[in-house]
């Protein structure tokens, strides 16, 4: 497939990396020649230097025979025009745009984006994605990673096992016998920094990070079994009142269980805008690093602190300070993925990588076949893929135990109709079912083959 990616910034580069790794014909367009050179030198992609929305630049990038255009420059307007020109001048089939500004995203205007108006098939909003990710983390405070699948009926939980976990040193095979009604399965395990898809005989050890795929109704039970308590969050302090912080605070206000949130924002104007957009939430103006201000926000009695400023170091330090002051839990926004290993020594409970969330949501739309959800795990080490099985697929109509899955692939759940089922060996997968699969990155093409990807779905 031929893909043009406009904008070689962080998001653009990550998408280019993912797509080029899957043997697609990728062209990167950016005004900054350095960024283009970095992309062409490190990845198997072509580069074009130029203004992304200019038709001649798009034509040089091969828009005439492109299948897809992804507009991820930092300007909303350029992204929009880019997609519109790709449609009007070159008739590109699929157009994805990243749009940040909340006004463009408001639900009242959401019918803006269709072929007759603004020709954008999919709108991706990093801020909104990050706000959603933050809310998910807040909802499951004892996990370090969560994502919802199958329309909210299933969840992927990332759990860090500690000494008090009651099922330590138990082979996974036995877990099934111990809890036969539990609709959950361990799909991934990170031991000593290496992510693997576990075998049935593997045991759970202390200090392991595991990924559990579970039915939504079994989330609490599942957390209990692995020694986690799911307690309610009542007081939340949000540091950073930009789009992300405001989005989270708004969502918290809209919830029925009265969560009391406080927002700390350094910039006066941004703080005023945040205060205008919120009803009950108190907005404090000042430096989030200031201990006095943190105490004014009652961080010592807070259940969680959410550090979502645009500066990684501030986020990390604020989280550490808050934890030290007595905050129960810290969730931190980190742009730089190489900072991820710092989380454990700094005692930060969870982190959100905006790029990973954005990339995940863009990937969801560009995967072949009837892929409905893709979630990138770790530093693009593995993916959780949710897809519908088609009648032409080699796995349709076969029992799970008979399917030759690669070594690094595990089935997390199967949804038949509305029912989410635990994948047992004697379960037959039929056409129309939705499967959620954990796949190590090297096995993703094999998974795509199993899902019988064909070009006629584009």
């Amino acid at each position, binding site marked *: 497939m031929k893909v043009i990616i406009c904008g070689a910034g962080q998001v653009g580069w990550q998408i280019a990396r993912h797509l080029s790794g899957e043997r697609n014909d990728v062209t990167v367009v950016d005004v900054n020649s350095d960024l283009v050179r970095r992309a062409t030198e490190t990845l198997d992609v072509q580069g074009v230097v130029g203004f992304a929305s200019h038709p001649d630049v798009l034509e040089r990038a091969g828009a005439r025979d492109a299948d897809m255009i992804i507009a991820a420059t930092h300007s909303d307007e350029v992204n929009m025009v880019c997609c519109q020109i790709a449609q009007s001048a070159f008739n590109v089939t699929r157009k994805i745009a990243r749009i940040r500004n909340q006004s463009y995203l408001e639900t009242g205007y959401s019918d803006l984006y269709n072929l007759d108006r603004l020709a954008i098939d999919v709108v991706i909003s990093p801020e909104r994605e990050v706000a959603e990710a933050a809310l998910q983390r807040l909802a499951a405070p004892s996990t370090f990673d969560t994502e919802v699948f199958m329309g909210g009926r299933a969840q992927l939980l990332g759990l860090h096992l500690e000494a008090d976990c009651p099922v330590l040193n138990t082979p996974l095979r036995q877990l099934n016998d111990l809890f036969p009604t539990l609709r959950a399965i361990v799909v991934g395990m990170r031991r000593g920094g290496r992510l693997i898809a576990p075998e049935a005989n593997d045991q759970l050890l202390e200090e392991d990070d595991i990924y559990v795929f579970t039915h939504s109704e079994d989330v609490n039970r599942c957390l209990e079994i692995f020694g986690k308590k799911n307690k309610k969050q009542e007081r939340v302090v949000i540091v950073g009142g930009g789009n992300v912080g405001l989005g989270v605070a708004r969502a918290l206000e809209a919830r029925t269980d009265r969560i009391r949130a406080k927002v700390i924002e350094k910039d006066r104007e941004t703080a*005023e805008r945040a205060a205008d957009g919120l009803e009950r939430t108190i907005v404090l103006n000042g430096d989030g690093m200031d201990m006095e201000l943190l105490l004014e926000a009652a961080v010592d009695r807070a259940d969680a602190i959410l550090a979502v400023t645009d500066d990684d170091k501030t986020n990390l330090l604020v989280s550490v300070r808050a934890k030290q002051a007595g905050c129960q839990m810290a969730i931190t926004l980190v742009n730089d993925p190489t900072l991820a290993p710092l989380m454990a020594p700094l005692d930060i409970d969870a982190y959100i990588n905006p790029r990973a969330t954005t990339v995940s949501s863009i990937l969801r739309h560009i995967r072949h076949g009837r892929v409905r959800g893709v979630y990138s795990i770790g530093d693009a080490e593995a993916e959780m893929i949710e897809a519908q099985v088609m009648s032409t697929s080699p796995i349709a109509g076969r029992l799970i135990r008979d399917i030759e899955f690669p070594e690094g692939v595990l089935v997390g759940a199967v949804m038949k109709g509305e029912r989410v089922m635990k994948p047992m060996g004697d379960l037959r997968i039929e056409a129309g079912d939705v499967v959620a699969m954990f796949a190590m990155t090297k096995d993703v093409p094999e998974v795509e083959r199993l899902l019988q990807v064909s070009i006629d779905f584009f």
Partner: protein
Amino acid sequence: MAQPGVAPAGFGRLAEFPLLVVLLGAVGLSCWLPAGHAVILGHHRVAQSFFYSGLVLTILAIMLAIATRHTRPRHGTQGQLAALAGAYLVLPLAMALPMVLAIRDTSLSNAWFEMLSCFTTTGASVYEPGRLSPSIHLWRALCGWFGGFFILLCAYAVLGPLNLGGAEVISGRVPGRGESAAQITRLADPALRLARHTGTILPVYAGLTLLLWVGLLIAGEDGLLALTHAMGTISTSGITAGAGLSVTGSGWVGELLLFVFLLFAVTRRALPVRGPHESRQTIWRDPELRLALALVTLVVAVLLLRHALSDADDTDLASLRGFFRAFWGAMFTSLSFLTTTGYESAYWSSARDWSGLGAPGLVLLALAIIGGGVATTAGGVKLLRVYALFRHGERELERIIHPSSVGGRGAEERRLRHEGAYQAWVFFMLFAISIALVMAALTVAGLAFETALVLGIAALTTTGPLAGVASLDPILYSGLTDPVKLILGAAMILGRLETLALIALFAPGAWRR
């Protein structure tokens, strides 16, 4: 006329003459309305006095117009405000002319006080209602109506642009100075602005009065009384031709009609005219309307709940009928005094009996001090200023808990809470000082403390009828000495024009920083 440039049309023509001359002409012409009325009724002496007064005033105005036609008026803050203050000094004298002629045994001071109180929409009357002929009642109502229109026009065309009369609370800038935009090379001529606003406001104002008049007539009110009440309600003068303050004839339906039309004195947004500093809120979210609603509800609730504490005889009063009478009486009267109109509900005595309070009139005194809406015909401190102070207080309380918190609800609201509240506080203090000064002057002139308090507040808030209800024994204006009338007259002008406007007029240097 052969004026070079664009010849202004309609009301614009009048902009060529000084404001005072135009107003004098208008008073002269309107004299002929009661003259005609008196002719129909057969009161020839009254008709004569109105006709000749009208003739004298009109001729005077025409002569003055010819003489002053090409004098360039002084522009700037002082010129405009001086014209405004001049209107309050000169016009009542002109209006008193037919009164002196028509009423046999009256002094000029009485007639002047009567007309000043009408023109400032105060509505305090020194005459027994029975002593005046119907045409004179019409003249009083007309002058009150004219005064209401004049202050409304000034609020839009003079005070608003000069950042006075409540506009300073909205804009948060220093009062008494217009917009200082360096890029605007030519400011609109104040006279032209007056003419343009007359064109937009007068039809609405007159139309509403007509509507209310017709409504009252349908409800069964006597023709003249209905017109007086319609004019008194729209202009918040509270002038009546009947014996008491209450609405008679049309009964409860009439009161309901007046109640609805009093809303035009609560918020400027009720008037279908695009005014200064208009925002696109719906009228139900208007802070002044909400505050007025809260205040009226509070007063009604206090008066009704007071019943539980009172030892009033509840064999008769405790009936549902008594409750509703008391409810409506309290509601209508409190809104009427909040808007500084001063009509009393026919059921006000029921409310008084129900609550068991000896003198709930003091509550009305407090309501009158709060006053109606900014840029309406109402007087008092004005609801918007009270609202700004309230919001500011609320925000300060919030800041005690969270010292670095940021207030929400938008930039406009933030400015209102901060700079607006500051300006409101300045005005509030000036108003309190004026009450003290007027009261001091009245006591020096020989009035008792309580009488001085009631009369002083009645004059400053332009709610003349307060004198009749606020204290236990009604105070009669007819029994006052001339010095007291003079002081009250000055207080009425002060209350009508607002202290800030007078300070801007007399001490312009103090505002130039």
